[in-house]
């Protein structure tokens, strides 16, 4: 039986972003019930027991994160909504915010009730102008309906949601970078600990949650733990540290497929099934050569690895960094991996915030070396130098404050290890790649 979408159930309905339509579909009844029937601790417990893991990339258990807040804190406690979705090839948060903002906002309200926050800062990346305007209209509807503000529905619970726009920086998706940016400073990630739950925005306890995670909170509270756990992949019994991959997931498909789109499926679909059953197959009747399984930071897989399940464990077994954002980008067999890797390195060099020297310099070196490769001037030792640099930058080797550098290194390591012959061939032949001459960018920023 085909899976019936829940998170995306409303996106094709007319006026799906409007409060009236959302309420007609039973919207905000979960929040209203929680205000009356549940204590905040019960909401935390239900989300924790559902096994919901963060959808932003790291997969940290959401309810568990909430329990890290200090007990009986006098406040204020803040919720920051991470809508700085900037991981290349990822767009599921945009669809949720543009098409069904109230589902996300109900999750924000439930989360704030659970963590006893009176104020949520909703940080939206600048590029999502339409999402920002849709959210602004939705928040205004909520104030007019008495669902936000003072003493909501006579419950004594107060909540304000402040929408905040970014200014085009990938690093603001890192949770402490986001907090610094929100505070009006350069978005330099903070050294942890203290983690935001102890000392976050404006030096107060703060929870940072992703947009899709909060939409899942709405559904977990509405449909219950059993429903959530009926979907996805249970924990691996051989791995005591595995928290499982329960629930629905928004997968996005991009690149060389016939129908790039966002689909909702239970966790654990394979790349092959995603391409064939949902992406309309590889475009132009070609074959796939590689894919990026979860946003660029996660690395690359070869076509013979497409049976990889897209849950929290699968990508790690294929040398990828993790599930990431579950954004699958397909690369066809006529594309040069040299060009693909250069594009990747160019992105991270551009988006490194410059705080930690190994990342600032390392991402720049990797961009320069891959640029040399695509211009046919690669040297024999370049591939090993690239892997060496990639291995030495990041929080795993312990040389940087945040994970951007790990994300910059992973695609380099996986691309070179999995497509070494192609890279060596390019160096030996000295041929320029397709894009060697293009994109000499002036006025780069």
């Amino acid at each position, binding site marked *: 039986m085909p899976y019936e979408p829940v998170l995306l159930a409303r996106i094709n309905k007319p006026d799906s972003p409007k409060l009236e339509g959302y309420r007609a579909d039973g919207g905000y009844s979960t929040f209203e019930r929680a205000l009356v029937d549940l204590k905040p601790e019960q909401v935390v417990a239900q989300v924790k027991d559902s096994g919901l893991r963060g959808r932003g990339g790291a997969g940290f258990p959401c309810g568990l994160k909430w329990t890290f807040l200090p007990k009986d804190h006098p406040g204020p406690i803040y919720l920051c909504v991470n809508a700085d979705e*900037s*991981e*290349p*090839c*990822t*767009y599921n*948060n945009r669809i949720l915010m543009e098409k069904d903002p109230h589902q996300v906002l109900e999750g924000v309200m439930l989360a704030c009730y659970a963590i006893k926050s009176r104020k949520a800062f909703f940080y939206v*990346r*600048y*590029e*999502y*102008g*339409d999402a*920002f305007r849709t959210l602004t209209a939705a928040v205004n509807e909520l104030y007019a309906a008495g669902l936000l503000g003072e003493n909501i529905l006579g419950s004594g619970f107060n909540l*304000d949601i*402040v929408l*905040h*726009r*970014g*200014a*085009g*920086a*990938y690093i603001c998706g890192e949770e402490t970078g986001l907090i610094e*940016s*929100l*505070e*009006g*400073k*350069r*978005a330099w990630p903070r050294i942890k600990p203290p983690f935001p739950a102890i000392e976050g925005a*404006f030096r*107060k306890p703060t929870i940072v949650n992703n947009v899709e995670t909060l939409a899942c909170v709405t559904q977990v509270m509405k449909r219950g733990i059993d429903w959530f756990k009926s979907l996805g992949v249970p924990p691996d019994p051989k791995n005591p540290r595995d928290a499982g991959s329960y629930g629905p997931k928004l997968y*996005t498909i*991009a*690149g*060389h497929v016939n129908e*790039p*789109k*966002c689909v909702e499926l239970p966790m654990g679909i394979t790349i092959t099934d995603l391409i064939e059953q949902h992406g309309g197959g590889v475009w132009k009747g070609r074959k796939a050569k590689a894919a*990026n399984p979860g946003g660029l930071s996660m690395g690359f897989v070869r076509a013979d690895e497409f049976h990889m399940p897209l849950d929290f464990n699968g990508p790690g077994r294929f040398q990828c960094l993790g599930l990431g954002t579950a954004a699958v*980008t397909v*690369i*066809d067999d006529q*594309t040069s991996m040299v*060009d*693909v890797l250069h*594009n*990747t390195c*160019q*992105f991270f060099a551009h*988006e490194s*915030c410059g705080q930690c020297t190994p990342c600032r310099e390392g991402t720049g070196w990797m961009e320069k070396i891959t640029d040399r490769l695509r211009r046919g001037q690669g040297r024999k030792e370049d591939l090993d130098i690239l892997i060496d640099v990639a291995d030495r930058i990041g929080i795993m080797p312990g040389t940087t404050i945040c994970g951007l550098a790990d994300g910059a290194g992973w695609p380099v390591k996986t691309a070179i290890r999995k497509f070494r012959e192609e890279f060596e061939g390019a160096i030996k032949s000295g041929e320029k790649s397709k*894009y060697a001459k*293009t*994109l000499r*960018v*002036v*006025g*780069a*920023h």
Partner: protein
Amino acid sequence: MGVLSESLKDRIRAYIPKYPRKQAVTLPALHLVHDELRTVSNEAMVEIAEILDLHPSEVQDTMTFYAFFKGEGEKLGQTRLWVCRGLACMLRGAYELIEHCEKKLGVHCGQTTPDGKITLEFAECIGGCDGAPACLMDDKHVMNVTPEKADKLIGELRQ
């Protein structure tokens, strides 16, 4: 005589009660000024700093970090046209599209046409991968941009 009008200053001040600290209004203030004046001059930074009880260097520190804002001596055109160069767009012709737009407009990325109508930019992934290659017209997505569609768009923006 300052560069920020009273109405612009009032709109900046209106953000202050939303945040626990005035410094948090730095980005909203920069956006308001940048949208209206198409640049954030040194004088504008001083005036923002006055409103937010900051040192001008704090505003400058934040502003220059984002590289999004045009500073002293630079000015945005009427419309800012961003062409995405992210991987999903590159795979579907973004580099060709950037070259096409540069030729068509006679400017490189980061520059403004002499008539002041269009500032061309490249963007890192703008999350429009289901409509790659994608562009942003200021902050609105335009999807599946072929060179023909880009020509039409540019024609409309030039009018």
